[in-house]
């Protein structure tokens, strides 16, 4: 059997983390290819459904990246996302999804190296956790 390669969905803010990812790319910083990036206009639009759906469709981890507090282009969307996450994590935990599989980080537009660092570490965390139970389960 081939080694486990985690499937990571990253939902990141257009104005900061997405730009940081872009910068990491143009600066030729290597980061694991396990990440599928979905761009949000702001983490404030992060709907619990997106996270749940990602896990039910077999994501091994979900990474959310937003602007540092005070930098959100919509004033406080990032703080709202931060408030939402623990509730979603609490629900996922009830059904056996470790809360380590869901992470929120603030990564500013100029922080390409930080993006690389966080993603690399997150992928390793998920690799150590092993595949998510929903990867093979039929979701009804």
């Amino acid at each position, binding site marked *: 059997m081939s080694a486990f390669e985690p499937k990571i969905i990253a939902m990141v803010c257009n104005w900061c983390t997405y730009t940081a990812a872009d910068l990491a790319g143009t600066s030729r910083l290597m980061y694991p290819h396990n990440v599928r990036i979905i761009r949000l206009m702001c983490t404030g639009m992060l709907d619990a459904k997106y996270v749940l759906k990602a896990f039910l469709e077999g994501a091994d981890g979900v990474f959310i990246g937003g602007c540092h507090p005070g930098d959100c282009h919509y004033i406080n969307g990032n703080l709202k996302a931060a408030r*939402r996450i623990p509730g979603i994590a609490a629900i996922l935990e*009830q059904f056996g999804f470790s809360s380590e599989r869901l992470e929120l980080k603030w990564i500013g537009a100029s922080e390409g190296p930080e993006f690389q660092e966080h993603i690399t570490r997150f992928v390793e965390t998920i690799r150590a956790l092993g595949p998510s139970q929903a990867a093979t389960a039929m979701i009804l």
Partner: protein
Amino acid sequence: MEKNSAMTVFYLKTDKNPKAGVSAFLGRMLSQSLADAVLVSARTPHSPLPMPAVITDPEKIEAADPLAPAAPFNAARQAVSILRHESGRKIVLVLRPCEIRALVELVKLKQCVLDDAVIIGMECRGRMETPIYLEKAAENPDLTAAFYRDPGLQDAVCASCRICTRFLPQAADIAIRVIGEPTDERIGIVPQTPAGQDLVGRLGLSEGPDSPGREDAVANMRDLREQERERAFQETAGKTDTIEKFQKYVAQCLNCYNCRVACPVCYCRECVFLTDVFAHDPQVLMRRAAKKGMIKLPADTTMFHLTRMAHMAHACVACGHCSSVCPSHIPVADIFIKVGNEVQKRYGYEPGRDLEEPMPLMVYDKPVVE
């Protein structure tokens, strides 16, 4: 609502008929024009099952039966229907603790206003599922009185009531006290706020000392319920701690959404599950079928339950009505109450405790307590 530190207890004589005692008490509010209307669970002409009713005529108040161990739904919804905006009429509402909790949440969600309302909360020994109540009521025409004297009948309450630890009407203006009271002789009336005091003060009831054993009765009931709850939570955890197990738990779900309709805090006029978001294009369904070789229809059953939790678990008032209405007899409330409890702990929030306590997702400047 502020609490008085010293609680004065007034007593209503019941003469073996607590139902009549309470309805006479409410009738006086109408005949003395202290209230324009009373919303209370009352018998309708064709069934012993009490339904929420708005009563304005003191002659009609004898139908009121709020102490009956039945509740076909969480009446917070019905309360909202008459409290959607200020009416200038004084409305007295007689509700169970879980209904008051739901009403408090619905006020926070701007579904109604309480400016014209006085809330009378009953101490709650629980409600029976409707079919069981109807069966017992057929055997016993005086079921309400019998319920408070017969522990056997009290054991017939529904699963959610058996694990409810918040059976005292905390946020009410006036509490109707039945626990640890000799209900065949008397029941207690306890004003808990200035508005409650004012109303009770005008009724000329006689004060009395606490019934002996009252405190122990409350403490015992709480202990039993807590133990029962811990046991139920563990049992539910054992049945749902992986996504496969949870899917087995809801395997007979029909996606009828009755649970959501019955839920007092699922307040959206249009649920996202009825919108185009979940009305997938055939291509999408085909693609999803191809991914695992098979897809069950209707799709999104697991997604429905988890999304509903994400939307309202922080506000779940543990009323159990989602289980009561499930045509497939899925113990929906067992899992929602348990998950609700976890989410509420995470945010340090207790739904329905206090009108001034902001809902977890309405504030974002506070870090989340772990």
